[in-house]
């Protein structure tokens, strides 16, 4: 897991120059196109986005992903789960990314920075997401994810049912705490995550990485 996330982190960052950036930045135009494409093929990248996400971007990306999965003739159950995971992760970035101060300050039409990558082949897919969060958000998020990661199928189902019926305060109304539970239930293995300090983002932030096998 750690190796895959490190590679992902390199792809997502501008510094140090990751494979994609190296191909794009060097002067040899012809080989760049081929190298870039063969890299994506080798890693079985189906979808990659690094930039500012908004609802409009999410809608378009969802269409793109759906079309790509149709062409790959992915089983319909897998398609559904991947799309659900993509939307959940992407909307989490928009709602919880640290570029506004608190959830209460956010209005509609916000853009938030995040990176999402889907790789996969032969009916086995992985979706990875990363976005900056406030360092103060890490403990709570880590706690939630650790407890979810430890749950088996039955425990996940029970936790999901409890959350579904529970009364929620306005604070948590955007996600209801259900999002990660739903992701975990769709996943084919325990969800993986990591928090890392990122020199580009400084001490106030942490990069949050999530990796889900479908």
């Amino acid at each position, binding site marked *: 897991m750690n190796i895959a996330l490190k590679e992902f982190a390199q792809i997502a960052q501008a510094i140090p120059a990751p494979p994609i950036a190296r191909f794009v930045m060097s002067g040899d135009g012809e080989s760049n196109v081929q190298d870039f494409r063969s890299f994506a093929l080798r890693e079985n990248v189906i979808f990659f986005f690094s930039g500012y996400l908004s*609802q409009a971007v*999410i*809608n378009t990306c*969802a*269409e793109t992903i759906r079309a790509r999965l149709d062409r790959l003739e992915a089983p*319909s*159950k897998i398609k*559904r789960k991947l*799309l*659900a995971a993509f*939307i*959940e992760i992407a*909307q989490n970035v*928009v709602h919880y990314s640290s570029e506004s101060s608190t959830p209460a300050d956010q209005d*509609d*039409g916000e853009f938030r920075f995040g990176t999402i990558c889907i790789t996969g082949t032969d009916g086995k897919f992985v979706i990875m997401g990363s976005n900056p969060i406030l360092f103060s958000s890490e403990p709570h998020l880590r706690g939630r994810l650790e407890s979810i990661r430890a749950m088996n199928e039955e425990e996940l189902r029970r936790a999901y*049912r409890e*959350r*579904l*019926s529970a009364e*929620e305060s306005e604070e948590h*109304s*955007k*996600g*209801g705490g*259900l*999002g990660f539970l*739903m992701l975990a239930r*769709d996943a084919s293995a325990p969800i993986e995550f990591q928090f890392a300090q990122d020199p580009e983002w400084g001490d106030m932030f942490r990069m949050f990485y999530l990796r889900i096998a479908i």
Partner: protein
Amino acid sequence: MSNFYLPGTKHTPEVDFRYSEHRLSLKGECFPENAVKFFGDLMDRTQTYLSGLKGQMVEVNVQLTYFNSASTKLLFKMIADFDAASQAGNLVTLNWYYDEEDDTLEEFGRDIEDEYTSLKVEMHALSAL
């Protein structure tokens, strides 16, 4: 009270709440940017409508292909209002439509059945949506 209609978009469902005909329908995708805003207004109107009913038959049709986590929560909450209306002596039927291959949608329908025992829930499996 006046009927409420919203055309569907790529990420929000068509809302066709015909209060005057006692037929309320939701159809399409459901991952609004702000589920609280989307459902909040709808739930307020619907609560007003339901509170004015007496021994009334109401038909609720839900045919959603996908709903995100925030919508899941609020949809469940809105259905609680229909259940309460049933408990208050009205006959509310919820027709739950889902793709026969979609376990998640089917399971949610069953969760509604389990939780809201006064509500009449009819499950409708649809083929090749």
